[in-house]
């Protein structure tokens, strides 16, 4: 679980993660009460409550607004690759496309959590040229729009790093 100070609300711990297709927010109200909110792709904000304690219902209205604000923040911190300026380093957060696009990008070296640099942008909505691990790739605007990135490390991608011990035991 990413621990992110920017998105913490005042009285509770707010934790979030970005899934492959959806945005998930977990709010820890106390040690055993958690609200889970899910924004499915392309749909309006919907969230489900898992609150057992009825007194906490009063908190709901307060959180309702905070949560909407958080989603707004997350959405705005994350941008599509086709709108990134040149010479900017960005980090891949999610790939919106289907299985094939994702697999193709994976084989060419674009994975979630990788840093890449936008080298050049062709005019008139032409392709974007990115550099990733020393390789240069031309990505059409349509493809680039599917790659969501963030700029300044404000968000943490949902990447499980390999524990070092396991990968080294070859």
């Amino acid at each position, binding site marked *: 679980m990413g621990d992110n100070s920017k998105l913490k609300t005042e009285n509770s711990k707010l934790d979030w993660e970005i899934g492959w297709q959806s945005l998930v927010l977990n709010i820890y109200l106390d040690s055993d009460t958690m609200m889970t909110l899910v924004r499915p792709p392309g749909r309006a904000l919907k969230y489900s409550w898992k609150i057992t304690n009825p007194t906490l219902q009063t908190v709901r209205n307060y959180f309702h607004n905070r949560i909407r604000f958080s989603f707004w923040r997350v959405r705005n911190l994350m941008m599509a690759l086709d709108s990134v300026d040149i010479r900017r380093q960005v980090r891949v957060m999610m790939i919106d496309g289907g299985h094939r696009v994702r697999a193709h990008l994976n084989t060419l070296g674009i994975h979630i959590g990788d840093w890449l640099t936008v080298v050049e942008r*062709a005019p008139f909505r032409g392709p974007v040229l990115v550099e990733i691990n020393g390789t240069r790739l031309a990505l*059409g605007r349509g493809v680039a729009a599917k790659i969501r990135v963030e700029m300044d490390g404000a968000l943490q991608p949902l990447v499980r790093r*390999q524990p070092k011990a396991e990968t080294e035991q070859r």
Partner: protein
Amino acid sequence: MRFVLAGQPNSGKSTIFNSVAGYRAATANFPGSSISFTFSRALILGHEVEVVDLPGIYSLTSSKEDAGKAEGYLLEGSYDLIINVVDASRLGRSLELTMQLLELERPMIVALNMMDEAKRGGMEVDHEELSRQIGVPVVPTVGRRGLGLKELFRRALQHAHQGEDSFALTLDREVEEAREEVAELLETNGVGNSVPRRFVAEKLLERDAHFEREIYAQHPELKKQVRKVAAVLQKAHGWSADQVISGSRHAVAHCIEEEAVTLERPQIGWREWADRVFLHPWTGGPVMVAILGLLFWVVFRVGQRLEMPLVELTDQLGASLAEKLPPETLLGTLAGGALTGIAGGVAIVLPYLLPFLIGLAILEDSGYLPRMAYILDNFMHRIGLHGKSVLPLILGYGCSVPAIMSARILPSLRDRRITAVLASFIPCSARTIVIFGLVAAYMGPWWALGIYLLNLLIVVLLGNVLARTMEGASPGLILEIPELQLPQMKTLAAKTWLTLKEFITIAWPLLVASSVVLGLLEWANAAATINALLAPLTVFLLGLPVAVGMTLVFGILRKELTLVMLVQALGTTNLSAVMTEGQMLTFTLFVVFYVPCVATVAVMAKELGWRDTAVISAFSVVLALVVGVAGRFGYALFG
């Protein structure tokens, strides 16, 4: 003994292959330049070895059809050793394929190619460390300059003799567990003996379409059990099983890369500066137009310089021959026909073909073509395709056959079909010869340029119509842009020779034979009958001389023939004496557009099916007629 060269696209497999096999496989600096297998026998340290050059694959799960073939060969083919060619400058990414190849558990060695490029990029690769990490021998090479290749094949032979199988690397714990579990399931059901079970297990977890089809057809009960294991994996990580496996592989590859590579400051050289100009939003387009214009101008200039003295010489020869053997006799006809065939090849075809082939080879080897794809992506989207289609289309200016075959680099079937059709309408080098030898030589280069632009316009319109009628959207451009390279004289010469050899061994004899046949037909007055049959088309519609009819028939064999046959049919190399400029223009336009040559039709039938090929051929004749008639009257009105 058989070695297989396998690796990612543009990692230099064909270059290494050519260094042992002589120049057999066409190389170029863009991903996907090899589209078919090439076999060759070579003598290495006194051992006869068969070397197989496979098309590049990004991974063993590639969904593309052509990659599927290379994958199939790696899985089931009989060979003694895999030589995995790895681009050292893209080590991390290439290792992901290497790891999959290791899972095949066959003897394997790694050629760490493009060491010079890696060094320029500031990467110091420790090949011994790498070898320790992946457990197979690693030999550093620079394929382009032939460094380390001797050592590579020595080690390959040694390793193949030992016959030591490679071992798969260990991935994430959960992945390993899932893989073991599925492998056990397979074992109890008795599946998979030729291919390692763990490999099959991994493919099933990744839901590889090919393996699922094959195995679930025999053991449908396995499907549920494997899916269950995949679901466990998915639950543990939160993403689908194929992503878990691919992510885990990426992480391991990254770890190995970190161990083996020391990073330094990359050198900034002319390549970066050139790229800045080539790809800059403002200068990229104009520079591209300038480069293509320069190519056109050089071909025209050089061709013209070479053609004039050669034509004079062959005219003299023809005249002296006619004195000794009068063309009325049978022998005279035969000799005259043969001479025209040879002379046509030397004097008309070669002067334009040679500089054109060299120019195209420079474009291919320098790596400028993928940059053109980048610049033109936007424009191609207007047609309904995307930038990658530019590669086959540009290759189409060389020869339609490889162009249509190279359409396979496109991932979607729809794009592939449209691009193949369009590539057949691009004037290939044979048609270029007609354009240059007739229009540019007698009417001036601007007219020739005009024909190219008109052709381009028609191709664009056609593409637009096709893209609108065929359903499905274009998936968009994902293309690797390789580093710029200075083309090497040796490769350029070898490459030009490869194409030229095909002209000399196939087209030239055909040219001479057709010339003789035409001479014979004329002698027997049969040509007149055929010409008379075609007269409504040639004389009435297109306003051409009657004698032209036969040449168009021969043009179906090869398009160069039209020009040489024209010389033969009209009886002179100085065509301006017998044809008006308007007729030349009409003739050239018709030749450029009508039915692609036999070889192209054959390859189109293979790629698109006979029905579509027949439709396209019929359409091309109608199109050629329309354009020809338009050219005739257009020239009469405005010329």
